[in-house]
């Protein structure tokens, strides 16, 4: 990958609006008494937001008293190593065509990553959509086509609808290895962690496009923290930060929607119905860096068991072969929950770079370490 061109505020599409927002944020931060020594901690949950913050250098442009804490909202980054191992195991089964989003190809497993398994001969194909996997299954009736279902609520409807389609067409050679996870539960886990100090949240807009804004009500009602659901353009993010700070200044905590042009209050009914039909909650699911979190993962309902790769291949949560330890020497867990900055990991830029990631946070542009490496590292070098 070539080095990205650095963008600063002067290159914002709407520099005037950004300037006004940054000034308003500074006034609010001063009003609250936020300083570099005593900053307001705002967690952006979504990896797309993390990417955008680094891309535009918002962390540097914003008032000293506002600190972004990068949350666990990159589905590739939170994928536990054991699940990658299981992907490789399925992919290496004779007769299988294993299909995945490109993002997941380089996530390290204990034995190998999917890309390493592919170069060793496994039939692993990068697809853009689960619909591609469905089409492969139609065209290859003699092969078992497995789709690696991965992601938060934004992508969950796509695999649910694909499984429904496979059932309607009575395909017998299509299954999904389901690793879908949900956003509200890990936020609750972070809020329950006594070591975390979070003052407010920027909520993922595209997740709320599916689930609406009310699944976050508990953040305001039970924990007294503001959350603003945001778009991913830089001015969206700045406006959302201002909305969070305004709530803090006024002593309020509410769920607000900055991204109303895409996010309906109650989400997308067709998507929600498909998810409810196909999936049920697992009692708990393991997150890289966070451990097991109650009710945070989805599995395929028994009525669609014929399309469940865990059932077909006899692997996964049901088998009890769990709790494979994570890599030693990396700080992924602490970086994941915002306790450490990527540069504080001893491996950052040494044993771990985007071309040869050691931890999953270095794999995808939505991972904090990769975003930091791609933009902040280059920026600091340029200064």
């Amino acid at each position, binding site marked *: 990958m070539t080095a990205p061109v650095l963008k600063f505020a002067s290159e914002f599409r709407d520099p005037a609006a950004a300037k006004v927002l940054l000034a308003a944020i500074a006034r609010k931060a001063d009003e609250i008494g936020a300083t570099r020594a005593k900053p307001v901690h705002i967690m952006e949950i979504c990896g*797309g937001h993390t990417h955008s913050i680094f891309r535009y250098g918002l962390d540097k442009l914003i008032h000293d008293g506002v600190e972004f804490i990068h949350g666990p909202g990159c589905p590739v980054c939170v994928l536990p190593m054991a699940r990658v191992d299981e992907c490789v195991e399925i992919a290496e089964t004779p007769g299988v065509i294993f299909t995945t989003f490109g993002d997941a190809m380089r996530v390290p497993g204990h034995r190998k990553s999917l890309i390493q398994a592919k170069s060793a001969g496994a039939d692993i194909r990068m697809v*853009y959509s689960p619909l591609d996997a469905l089409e492969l299954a139609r065209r290859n009736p003699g092969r078992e086509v497995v789709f690696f279902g991965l992601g938060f609520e934004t992508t969950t409807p796509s695999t649910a609808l694909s499984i429904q389609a496979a059932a309607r067409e009575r395909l017998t050679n299509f299954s999904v290895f389901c690793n879908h996870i949900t956003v509200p539960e890990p936020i609750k886990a972070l809020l329950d962690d006594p070591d975390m100090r979070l003052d407010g949240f920027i909520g993922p807009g*595209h997740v709320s496009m599916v689930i609406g804004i009310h699944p976050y009500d508990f953040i305001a009602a039970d924990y007294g923290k503001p959350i603003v659901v945001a778009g991913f353009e830089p001015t969206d993010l700045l406006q959302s930060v201002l909305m969070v700070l305004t709530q803090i200044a006024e002593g309020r905590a509410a769920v607000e929607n900055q991204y109303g042009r*895409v996010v309906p209050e109650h989400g997308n009914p067709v998507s929600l119905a498909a998810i409810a039909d196909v999936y049920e909650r697992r009692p708990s699911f393991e997150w890289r860096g966070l451990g097991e979190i109650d009710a945070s993962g989805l599995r395929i309902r028994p009525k669609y068991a014929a399309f469940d790769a865990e059932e077909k291949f006899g692997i996964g949560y049901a088998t009890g072969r769990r709790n494979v330890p994570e890599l030693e020497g990396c700080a992924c867990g602490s970086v994941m929950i915002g306790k450490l900055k990527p540069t504080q990991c001893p491996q950052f830029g040494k044993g771990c770079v985007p071309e040869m990631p050691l931890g999953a946070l270095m794999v995808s542009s939505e991972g904090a370490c990769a975003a930091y490496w791609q933009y902040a590292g280059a920026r600091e070098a340029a200064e």
Partner: protein
Amino acid sequence: MCLGIPGKIIAITDAARLMAMAEVSGVRREVNVACVAGNDLEALVGAWTLIHVGFAMSLIDEDEAARTLEALRDLGEAQEALDQMAAADEALA
């Protein structure tokens, strides 16, 4: 994977399966429109949608589509989505 990309619906290709042809940054790609369909499928032709992993997830206006696309280009995500579509064509070949 999570950001999606704007695309314009140009034709309904398979009404039973709720599939339509979309134009995404000059590239044509068949997408599922179940989540934005409503009652009149043909009414979708000409509409802008936000497409996530092959599924139109939300209707947006043209202005929003243009701004979103520009932001995605800045982030390198637009090219990534187009590359993934091309990779998928290869996987199916």
